[in-house]
């Protein structure tokens, strides 16, 4: 339509009328209802009114923008003047009188206004004012004179006669949509029967919706099925059903589509924002949805039961099959209820479907519950927002039958972590400590004197597992299983891995027994190194309590005391001690027991240390024995287990005995260093049997020598520390043995597996 040129009077008049119709004070779009009433008040035949509306482009747009309104008014004037309605007549007809509107309309208008106001209230939620259509070159000016009253008066008379004013009927839905589209929809929807324009309106509505940016025009929120539908739908008589129209979208008339069920469209088709995502829910839409949600469920955080949702959406008159599909899409958590997000998504889908959009196979991302969760108060939306799961607390109910979405989110992480750890764990890492612990326990059992070690040792295996569990949630969960696994059995996993894993886990636990297996590998070596070095140092410096303590302190978090004890005896000593300790523990548990009582015999150790390697070994053995109990707290249960296994193997080789001690000491030398690493290094370092035998021999020697060491009361501190160190040494040795044994076991198992495979291959038709 060409631009409309208005005279000043006309402009004033029109702007006044516009303001009059602009119930919602949007200043941009007039309420359709009002406009219609106004037109009716113009005492023009309905068809003329319709024609006017069509001409001015309101039908196309679905709403009355200022320009449309002005054009319409001009056309009214033209019609009232008896001129044929033509687009050109807008500007060609000169000196047109101002359009006249029946004043009586005021009353009706007021009545309508009431309804409208209610509508407008409802619609108030709708955002936006539709910006005046760009195309119209109309001058929009405000100052309206009182002329507006005139038309109204005339309108009143006309109203009753106007067939249009039929009580809301479905056709009116279009007007409703209009309203909505116009955001003015105030009341007009509900009350605007507009039977005549009904069908007219629907296209309007659609047009408007179409205008939404373009693509996703949802053919306008097709006038919500005239209130009837909507009312039922929304529970609120009018209005609200209409979706807020996007003003911008309205502008775009290109995508106008006729809503399939236009008039009956219940749902307010929200003009899809369509800017970038056809499924995106605009704010107005969302607000509308929320309002609808509230009508069913006042609590935004609550759920809409399936039955209520079913009724609600059935009003949309979509086929049940489609509704069913929509439900499947939107009920994200499959709980049979709709959260706000889910409801919005479902509503959005219904509107889309109403507008002719095909339902997607999968829920679009923009409809995922998460969206709503974060944005609106309604958090849940599990359904609508897939994302919601991650973010929302996932109210309990929404969990899919198979799994809880919320849990899923959290669990997978845990599971992964646990799985990872589990995979890593299977290792006996625990084994080593457990072994040692077990040995210690044995020692302790035999010897009650041991302070900490005894009790802890006894409890260690369980404690360790418990601790592991406690320490790292998931990780330990897996680790625990591993532990149980390892403790019970075995050393199937690579000691190296185990060691590393265990150590890691232990580190998590951070508490006592696991401290032995220092959290990170790094600490491990330290102790060993420190031990070795410290041993020398200690010996050289004749360990004093202070030094010992320092040594203990220096020990990495894992086992502070260890380094000292390990240090004191010296690396070599440790090893043999460990080996011996292992052996002795097993075979000579009774020996160990008495050794433990020698806990405080540091002085003796010192003496022995100075004496000879064997003595050192013995000391170490003693220390190990003592350390073991002490270290139990730190050593993970696995060490005990390791010790056990070691001890077992050692028992076999115990016979080899002392002769091998010396030999054993050397090979044992390396192991002590990475006590923690024993899991890894030990395996590598130790040859299988020989070391075992040697170790056993050493251990046996050490253990054997231990009992002979009397306690000295005078140097309790040193003795204790020395014993601690010894125990630690023993632990480390045992752990190493354990790891090595485990490694051997693994190798053997692998061989077995390969053999079995070969057997299977060779066996013909074994499967048959």
């Amino acid at each position, binding site marked *: 339509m060409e631009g409309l040129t208005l005279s000043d009077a006309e402009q004033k008049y029109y702007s006044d009328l516009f303001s009059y119709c602009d119930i919602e004070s949007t200043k941009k779009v007039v309420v359709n209802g009002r406009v219609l009433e106004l037109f009716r008040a113009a005492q023009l035949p309905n068809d003329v009114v319709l024609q006017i509306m069509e001409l001015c482009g309101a039908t196309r747009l679905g709403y009355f923008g200022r320009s449309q309104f002005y054009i319409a008014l001009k056309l009214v004037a033209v019609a009232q003047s008896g001129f044929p309605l033509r687009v050109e007549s807008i500007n060609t007809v000169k000196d047109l009188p101002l359009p006249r509107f029946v004043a009586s309309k005021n009353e009706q208008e007021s009545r309508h206004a009431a309804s409208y106001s209610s509508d407008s209230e409802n619609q108030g939620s709708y955002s936006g004012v539709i910006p005046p259509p760009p195309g119209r070159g109309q001058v929009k000016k405000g100052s309206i004179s009182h002329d507006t009253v005139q038309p109204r008066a005339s309108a009143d008379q006309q109203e009753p006669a106007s067939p249009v004013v039929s009580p809301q009927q479905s056709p009116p839905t279009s007007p409703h949509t209009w309203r909505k589209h116009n955001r003015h929809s105030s009341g007009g929807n509900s009350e605007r029967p507009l039977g005549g324009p009904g069908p007219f309106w629907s296209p309007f509505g659609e047009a408007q919706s179409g205008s939404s940016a373009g693509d996703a025009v949802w053919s306008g929120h097709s006038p919500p099925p005239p209130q009837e539908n909507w009312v039922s739908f929304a529970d609120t008589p009018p209005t609200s059903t209409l979706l807020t129209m996007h003003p911008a979208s309205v502008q775009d008339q290109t995508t106008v589509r006729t809503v399939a069920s236009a008039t009956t469209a219940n749902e307010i088709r929200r003009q899809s924002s369509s800017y970038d995502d056809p499924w995106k829910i605009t704010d107005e839409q969302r607000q509308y949805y929320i309002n609808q949600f509230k009508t069913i469920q006042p609590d935004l955080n609550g759920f809409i039961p399936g039955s209520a949702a*079913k009724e609600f959406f059935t009003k949309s008159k979509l086929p049940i099959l489609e509704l*069913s599909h929509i*439900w*499947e899409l939107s*009920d994200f958590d499959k709980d*049979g209820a709709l959260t706000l997000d889910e409801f919005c998504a479902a509503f959005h889908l219904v509107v889309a479907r109403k507008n002719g959009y095909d339902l997607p*196979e999968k829920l679009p991302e923009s409809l995922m519950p998460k969206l709503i969760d974060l944005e609106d108060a309604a958090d849940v939306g599990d359904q609508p927002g897939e994302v919601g799961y991650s973010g929302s607390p996932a109210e309990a109910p929404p969990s*899919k039958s198979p799994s809880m979405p919320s849990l899923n989110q959290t669990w997978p992480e845990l599971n992964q972590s646990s799985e990872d750890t589990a995979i890593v764990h299977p290792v006996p890492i625990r084994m080593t400590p457990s072994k040692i612990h077990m040995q210690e326990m044995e020692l302790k059992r035999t010897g009650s004197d041991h302070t900490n070690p005894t009790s802890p040792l006894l409890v260690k295996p369980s404690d360790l597992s418990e601790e592991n569990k406690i320490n790292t949630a998931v990780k330990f969960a897996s680790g625990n299983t591993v532990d149980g696994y390892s403790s019970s059995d075995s050393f199937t996993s690579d000691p190296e891995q185990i060691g590393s894993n265990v150590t890691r886990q232990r580190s998590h636990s951070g508490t006592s027994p696991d401290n032995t297996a220092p959290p990170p590998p790094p600490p491990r070596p330290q102790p060993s190194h420190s031990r070795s070095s410290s041993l020398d140092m200690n010996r050289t410096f004749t360990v004093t309590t202070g030094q010992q303590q320092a040594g203990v302190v220096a020990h990495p978090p894992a086992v502070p005391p260890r380094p000292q004890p390990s240090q004191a005896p010296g690396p070599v000593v440790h090893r043999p001690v460990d080996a011996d300790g292992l052996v002795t523990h097993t075979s000579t548990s009774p020996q160990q027991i008495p050794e433990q009582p020698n806990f405080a015999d540091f002085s003796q150790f010192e003496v022995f240390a100075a004496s000879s390697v064997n003595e050192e070994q013995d000391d170490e053995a003693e220390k190990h024995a003592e350390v073991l109990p002490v270290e139990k707290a730190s050593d993970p249960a696995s060490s005990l287990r390791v010790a056990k296994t070691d001890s077992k193997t050692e028992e076999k080789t115990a016979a080899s005995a002392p002769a091998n001690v010396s030999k054993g000491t050397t090979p044992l030398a390396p192991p002590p260093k990475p006590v923690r690493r024993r899991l890894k290094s030990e395996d590598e370092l130790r040859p299988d049997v020989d070391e075992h035998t040697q170790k056993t021999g050493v251990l046996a020697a050490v253990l054997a020598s231990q009992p002979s060491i009397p306690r000295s009361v005078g140097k309790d501190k040193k003795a204790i520390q020395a014993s601690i160190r010894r125990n630690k040494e023993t632990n480390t040795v045992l752990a190493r043995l354990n790891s090595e044994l485990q490694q051997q076991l693994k190798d053997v198992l692998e061989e077995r597996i390969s053999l079995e495979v070969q057997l299977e291959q060779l066996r013909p038709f074994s499967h048959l």
Partner: protein
Amino acid sequence: MAVCIAVIAKENYPLYIRSTPMENELKFHYMVHTSLDVVDEKISAMGKALVDQRELYLGLLYPTEDYKVYGYVTNSKVKFVMVVDSSNTALRDNEIRSMFRKLHNSYTDVMCNPFYNPGDPIQSRAFDSMVTSMMIQVC
């Protein structure tokens, strides 16, 4: 893995039946129909407590030279019947169980849909896709 999957209602009429189109589907329908007798027999044979002790998974209902028929009953007497091809590496029992579990979960999801009236044929696309995924594995 399955060549035919059927959901039978409590009254023994099919709610959903889908088979790989390779062969004459009628044959599968017939097989499912005849397997219902076996299902009923197993149901009645099981614990007196109607549901309590009865395990949902019925196991192999009967084998033919080409196919094996497995059954699963829910607590509401809705039966799932699955026909698998014998030529496939014998599916382990656990796998069949897991497939039935998935079926059951999907069926529950369908039930949760308020727009679905129990007793109606199942037309859920999600259910279809799940069943198709199970059947496609066969090939």
